[in-house]
């Protein structure tokens, strides 16, 4: 029975939709019958026919109202009126193409920008990593860094309490020189342990991955290549398996090709076995470790296990350098995206503010239009439309607007995501995956739909409520076109403009802080002369240059060959590019106390350079002398900051230090004499001057040399003559390296470009936030202009009277501008207060600027004030030129 009842109700509810006219006719008939009988009854009581009819109508209370009530009762009618409303809404929009275009475009910008940023957030932060059961893949790290030594990893493997697929990949082989049949190429190579492929579920399209023997120390040298490399270097050769390639001077046999669907992090072209030696004495921390939590094992359990193992390792390995033994197990996704999370969330917040501004603008447009529609609404109300019905109708208009805004916005977003990808810093995690997102996925589309609904309510509800409160009688009485918006409407619009100005202030403050931070990063002296410098990088990782004598020899060859190129003034080689350095080294000063909890005196930046590095980069010598071409005993030059930090009162020149104490016999370099102090250079653009030790390759331990070659790419820095563009010698330099040494020269850039690239993330944030702030400023300007034009129009008569009573044009101009100023100042005050509170979120992204930077908080309000006055200027001029005679006749 329940079903029948349901069916019947459904039929009744659908009927009005399907046969609306029939139902309406039924209603008419029914009520007419009632009225007829009632009239007859009244006549029988002695009324005149007209009187009788009227009395009958009064007793019914208005035919149209009753019909409207009955329609409302028939819930099915709800849908019917919705369709009707939407049809009507569309008609209204078509009749006002200018208004519609502006509103839809504004909304599309807001929705599109939000969707695009959300698509990025979705891929980077929300979407699971592209691995099977990726939520169970964890990263192991310590509070002081994410890398471990080979003995540590081997110990964990032997004492593993139950974490699956414990897998290490070596950070120390990031790029290698590949020589095969084609041109030499600098490839992203990665030494990985046996379980790596199983952990990440990498599938192969050909061949196999390593076996246990191949991952043993001394095992066969085999390689698995990525699909991209296979296509690029080997032209997709189907008989690649079993072929030998030279990687860093070592022959490797290709045994497998990975499917293109496998996306490794970090990006990798070629995988070779780690071949970790459990008996190794190598204490360098270069391994990143991932594992899989077995089902049923929680993160905190795994944390406790790993911490216990870490402790045991420290107790059983006194060789260890000391330091933090608390191991942290965190989800891989968190580890991968942790450092961009806050920036992305800030961008999402900022773009949300832009949408809010867009909504305020459209709401303002609707309110402006509402003034002209008051009469229409009054007529509707008189014909029996209830308030909720009116609001519903006005909202369906807004919904139609938002819908078109959403459609156009999705298109904008599609283009926007591509734009973001093109602009995104190359180290934005998971950008690769985003590139493969061709369609906007359901979550993103759902987000857009949500935005459409929310915006429709946001910008539509306020004006709709305002408008539906229309005073019926007053509106109908008003004459002509000037159905007054009334003070309420004006107040509503003022509130909206105040909100707009406030939001613009917030975005502008954020953008200004980032601009000032950018200026601080790029404005301070670098400590060297970056102009006319060309840089390129080669890889010395691998067996070919594993001895420091070989590296020394190669460096000399490169320098002399490059310096022979016409236009080149000087050249130098360094173990790391300036402004990108992260390569550090521990050292001891004999007789000095160790760092608390560690077995060394200090940990500073370390550069292995060619002797004339300082003159090529124009780094000044401050004390002692520079490095020499011939070095009978190990020598070092240190930076000013290092001298001040470790020898605050004494002269460091002539002192001896130990480089790499306790790292192992092939790493340690006892007794290096400091021969000079040079000027500070900044190791990175977003940090201050760093303490640095410079040495030539001549006496470096072979182990340390191999470590450095693996960790970083060897930088070649070329200074060209005055007035000669550095890039003009790029091709020659590349040819010299490739032809003579078989080294692939990667990333040929000017030093200026290196600087820009090194702050790519900050630049990206700055660009986006700047763009949002510019849009915000524009929208706020339009808002102020709109409300002032409206206000002047409303006051035409008043202005006319004032002019007639002798107010000068100057007075009128002044008072109009003052009105604009008052609105703006309120918005400014609100905006500055909120900004003060919000800009703290930017703290992590700022360099050399405090979040409460006074110049920012002074200049932004001034800028906005200027913009507000500019926006009010045109309406104010119009007010000034009001002709009293015309104005008084106005109405």
């Amino acid at each position: 029975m329940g079903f029948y009842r349901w069916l019947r109700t459904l039929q009744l509810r659908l009927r009005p939709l399907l046969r609306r006219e029939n139902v309406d006719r039924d209603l008419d008939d029914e009520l007419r019958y009632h009225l007829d009988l009632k009239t007859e009854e009244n006549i029988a009581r002695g009324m005149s026919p007209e009187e009788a009819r009227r009395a009958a109508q009064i007793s019914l209370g208005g035919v149209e109202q009753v019909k409207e009530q009955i329609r409302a009762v028939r819930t099915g009618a709800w849908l019917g009126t919705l369709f009707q409303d939407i049809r009507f809404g569309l008609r209204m929009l078509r009749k006002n193409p200018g208004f519609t275009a502006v509103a839809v475009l504004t909304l599309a910008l807001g929705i599109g920008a939000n969707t695009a940023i959300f698509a990025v957030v979705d891929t980077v932060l929300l979407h699971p990593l592209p691995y099977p059961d990726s939520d169970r893949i964890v990263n192991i790290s310590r509070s002081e860094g994410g890398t471990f030594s080979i003995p540590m990893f081997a110990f964990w493997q032997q004492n593993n309490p139950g974490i699956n697929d414990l897998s290490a990949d070596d950070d120390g082989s990031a790029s290698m020189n590949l020589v095969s049949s084609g041109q030499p190429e600098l490839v992203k190579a990665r030494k990985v342990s046996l379980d790596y492929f199983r952990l990440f579920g990498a599938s192969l399209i050909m061949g196999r991955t390593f076996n246990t023997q191949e991952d043993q120390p001394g095992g066969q040298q085999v390689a698995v290549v990525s699909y991209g490399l296979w296509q690029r270097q080997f032209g997709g050769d189907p008989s690649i398996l079993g072929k030998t390639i030279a990687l860093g001077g070592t022959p490797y046999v290709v045994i497998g090709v990975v499917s293109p669907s496998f996306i490794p992090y970090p990006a990798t072209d070629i995988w070779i076995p780690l071949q970790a030696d459990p008996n190794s004495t190598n204490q360098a921390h270069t391994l990143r470790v991932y594992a899989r939590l077995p089902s049923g094992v929680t993160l905190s359990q795994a944390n406790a296990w790993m911490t216990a193992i870490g402790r045991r390792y420290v107790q059983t390995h006194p060789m260890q350098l000391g330091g933090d033994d608390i191991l942290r197990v965190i989800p891989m996704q968190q580890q991968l995206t942790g450092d961009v999370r806050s920036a992305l969330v800030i961008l999402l917040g900022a773009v949300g503010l832009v949408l809010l501004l867009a909504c305020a603008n459209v709401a303002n447009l609707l309110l402006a239009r509402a003034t002209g529609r008051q009469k229409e609404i009054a007529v509707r109300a008189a014909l029996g439309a209830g308030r909720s019905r009116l609001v519903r109708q006005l909202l369906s208009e807004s919904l139609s607007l938002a819908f078109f805004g959403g459609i156009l916005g999705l298109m904008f977003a599609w283009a926007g995501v591509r734009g973001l990808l093109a602009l995104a810093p190359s180290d934005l995690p998971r950008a690769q995956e985003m590139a493969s997102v061709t369609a906007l996925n359901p979550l993103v589309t759902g987000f857009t739909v949500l935005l459409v609904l929310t915006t429709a309510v946001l910008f539509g509800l306020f004006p709709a409520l305002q408008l539906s409160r229309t005073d019926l009688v007053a509106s109908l009485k008003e004459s002509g076109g000037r159905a007054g918006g009334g003070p309420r409407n004006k107040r509503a619009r003022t509130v909206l403009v105040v909100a707009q100005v406030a939001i613009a202030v917030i975005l502008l403050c954020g953008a200004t802080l980032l601009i000032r931070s950018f200026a601080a990063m790029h404005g301070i002296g670098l400590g060297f002369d970056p102009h006319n410098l060309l840089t390129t990088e080669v890889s010395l990782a691998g067996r070919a240059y594993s001895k420091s004598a070989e590296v020394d020899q190669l460096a000399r060859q490169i320098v002399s060959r490059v310096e022979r190129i016409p236009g080149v003034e000087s050249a130098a080689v360094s173990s790391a590019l300036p402004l990108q350095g992260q390569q550090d080294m521990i050292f001891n000063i004999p007789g000095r106390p160790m760092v608390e909890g560690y077995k060394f005196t200090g940990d500073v930046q370390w550069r292995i350079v060619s002797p004339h590095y300082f003159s090529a980069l124009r780094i000044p010598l401050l004390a002692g002398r520079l490095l020499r071409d011939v070095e009978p005993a190990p020598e070092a030059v240190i930076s000013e900051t290092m001298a001040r930090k470790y020898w605050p009162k004494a002269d460091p020149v002539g002192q001896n230090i130990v480089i790499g104490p306790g790292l192992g016999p092939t790493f340690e370099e006892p007794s290096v004499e400091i021969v000079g102090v040079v000027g500070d250079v900044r190791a990175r653009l977003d940090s201050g001057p760093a303490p640095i030790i410079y040495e030539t390759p001549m006496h470096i331990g072979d182990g340390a040399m191999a470590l450095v070659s693996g960790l970083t790419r060897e930088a070649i820095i070329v200074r060209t003559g005055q007035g000669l563009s550095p890039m003009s010698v790029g091709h020659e330099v590349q040819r010299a390296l490739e032809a003579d040494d078989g080294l692939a020269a990667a990333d040929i850039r000017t030093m200026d470009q290196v600087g820009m690239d090194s702050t790519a993330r900050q630049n990206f944030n700055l660009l986006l936030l700047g763009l949002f702030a510019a849009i915000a400023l524009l929208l706020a300007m339009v808002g102020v202009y709109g409300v002032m034009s409206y206000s002047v129009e409303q006051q035409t008569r008043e202005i006319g009277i004032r002019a007639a009573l002798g107010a000068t044009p100057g007075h009128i101009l002044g008072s109009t501008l003052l009105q604009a100023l008052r609105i703006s100042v309120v918005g400014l005050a609100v905006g500055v207060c909120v900004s003060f509170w919000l800009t703290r979120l930017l703290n992590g992204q700022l360099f050399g600027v405090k979040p409460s930077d006074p110049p920012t908080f002074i200049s932004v309000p001034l800028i906005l004030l200027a913009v507000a006055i500019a926006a009010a200027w045109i309406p104010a001029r119009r007010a000034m030129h009001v002709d009293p005679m015309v104005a008084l006749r106005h109405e």
Partner: protein
Amino acid sequence: MSKPADLVQGTLDLLILKILALQPLNGFAVSQRLKQVSGEVLQVSDGSLYPALHKLEQEGWISAEWKITDNNRRAKFYSLTRLGRRQLEREAGNWGRLSAAISRVLRLRET
């Protein structure tokens, strides 16, 4: 003419159901009958009668049918459905309990 007391929420439905339980009627007749039987005490405005009738039809308690009346006019006649009869019993029971309770309260004497 004093304003008739507002009907307690939902009682109009009960009255209509009861009247239709006796015989199928059209809207005008329902309105007449309401006045008759309540001795003009309950003056249900015709404006609220029709929405109420349509609501009851929506609920499935009454059904409507176009018929020719005695004086040869087309009119919409409402009749009680089986569901409506059950609803009437339930509502009447509720009403009885409610009015009995209220009467008891009103009979309380000050002591």
